[in-house]
């Protein structure tokens, strides 16, 4: 699904150049649930941004579902993001003046899906995350966990190839975190490929594979026995 070869990325800070990713080789199979771990400054967010086509690499190869991702202009990147990727953010990033259902329907709108179908789909995905009854509530009327579940429904709605979650539990208490992880695990059980960036070891343990980043290189890449979040809920 994802193939990365010798990925480099540096940021220019004034006259200095900060080498953030120093040759990453990494691939993800269909249906995997991968945790990307590392302390701040390890390059994990940069890697996620490049994977999410939010940022470009300096050199190296990136293939997503067999499509080489390079030299994208903004329009092309937007289309690829819409088609291939679903994003889950730490701070949910719901649009605050749109209801839960409207938020979920947003990527479908950019896919030019018809209005009726959008509504049906968004309700269906809200039902999947257990928030059907909250469909017409504004984000301000939802709890943090509910917001993140709406965000997950939104990421799923576009039926992407890969879900990218950037610290999905970073803003939640541990009970809610486990609820969200439970949902992520269940979505993964259905065959979805998911990448989770986290610095919390217990969250990482709930994935099937942990990739450790340190100073811009992968220092450890291991398969783990998945801890089911269900038992803590």
């Amino acid at each position, binding site marked *: 699904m994802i193939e990365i070869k010798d990925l480099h990325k540096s940021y220019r800070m004034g006259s200095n150049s900060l080498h953030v990713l120093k040759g990453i080789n990494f691939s993800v199979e269909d249906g995997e649930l991968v945790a990307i771990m590392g302390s701040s400054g390890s390059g994990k967010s940069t890697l996620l941004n490049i994977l999410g086509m939010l940022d470009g690499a300096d050199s190296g190869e990136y293939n997503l579902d067999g499509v080489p991702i390079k030299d994208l202009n903004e329009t092309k990147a937007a289309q690829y*993001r819409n088609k291939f990727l679903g994003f889950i953010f*730490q701070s949910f990033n719901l649009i605050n003046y749109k209801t839960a259902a409207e938020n979920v329907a947003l*990527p479908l709108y*950019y896919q030019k899906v018809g209005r009726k179908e959008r509504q049906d789909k968004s309700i269906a995905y809200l039902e999947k995350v257990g928030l059907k009854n909250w469909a017409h509530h504004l984000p301000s009327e939802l709890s943090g966990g509910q917001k993140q579940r709406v965000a997950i429904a939104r990421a799923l709605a*576009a039926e992407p190839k890969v879900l990218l979650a950037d*610290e999905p539990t970073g803003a939640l208490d541990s009970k809610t975190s486990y609820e969200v992880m439970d949902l992520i695990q269940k979505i993964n059980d259905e065959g979805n490929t998911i990448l989770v960036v986290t610095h919390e070891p217990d969250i990482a343990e709930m994935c099937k594979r942990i990739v450790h980043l340190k100073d811009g290189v992968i220092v450890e890449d291991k398969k783990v026995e998945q801890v089911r979040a269900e038992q803590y809920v």
Partner: protein
Amino acid sequence: MWLFDRDMWSEIFHTLGQNMFRTFLTMLGVIFAMIILVLLLGSTNGMSNGFDKIFAGTASNSLFVWAQATSEPYKGFERGRRIQFKIEDADILKKNIPEIEVLAPRIELGSHRGVVSVYRKGRTSGSAVYGDFPQIDEITKKKLVEGRFLNKSDIDEAKKVCVIGEETYELLFDKGEQAIGTELRINGVFFTIVGMYKPNDNINIDGENAVFIPFTTFQKAFGSGNRMGWMAIAVDANTKVSFVESQIKTLLKNKYDIAPTDERAIGSFDFSEIFSNISAFTTVLKGFSFFVGLFTLLAGVIAISNILLITVKERTKEIGVRRAMGATPKIVKRQIVLEAIVLTAFAGLIGFAISIGILSGLNAAFGSGEDFPFVNPMITIPQFTISFVLMVGLSVLIGLIPANRALKIRPIEALREE
């Protein structure tokens, strides 16, 4: 067709509706600008209409020609010789100058602008007395309150009839007294009143204290023979009055042995000059109003652009999310430009409605044009269309500034956690 995309519009109205107060404040600039523009244009139009009304009834393409005294000796004549036009001159001029549409000869009793005693039942009025042809009515229209003006049969039969001004009536009659059919006496000759006119708001060359009698009657009654005082001449609308004026003068100078270089012997007054001066004045005024209004509008639209820039800044995160969700730069840009257009157009319409209300009020209060030239102050449909198109056009251009700012937002920066 994206123009009819219901979601796009609901997005736009959603965003604008989010902060109603700020949206309203933003629109205020354009509302005021539109009010100023429409009021300026409307008032200028009202003024222009007012002038039109003053001149209504006076053929704009007309001139008056009269005789004076020569200022140069010529062909053995000394300077200072008084010229006296003859009634046959009228026919000569009409025959030789096809551009003349109407030519009304006139003769005056006494000296020019002099007054003659008019008697009725022991009362007198010092009025101007004119011998006229009915055609004069085509050049300076009289507003008749009662009866009729002179007609052809009055001329043909040299009837002893007259038309009087309202001021003359007031001097000779008691209030409410019937004037039509009664007689008055001028230089011992009795005339029956057949019509009375009242002062109208427009230019009145003859004054209101005047008595008009048929030219032919004048000749017989006062023994004026073939003399003619002056001529009112209407010229074909497509011909310049000055052109006809010089032709007339050349002809008459030739006939009366006046030096071709003598500027003083024949006097004339070109009416079209006044009209062109006034229309030039109102045109300049209109242009100026438009200019001022347009720049006010520009300022208003810039205010909208500024607020949208702030909004874009505030919505950085939202725009980042949208782009992460697959919004292309085109969609983002379109949304912000459309917001600018919607704000401007809506504000423009509100301003337009308010100013039309004000203009209607002004019209009701002063629109009669009795006291000063101000009639029907309203903007024309082309003026409205042009202003509106310009306004929307400006809003597109100015909306591009915040739109491009929004495009510069990179999703990665927008979504970066604080």
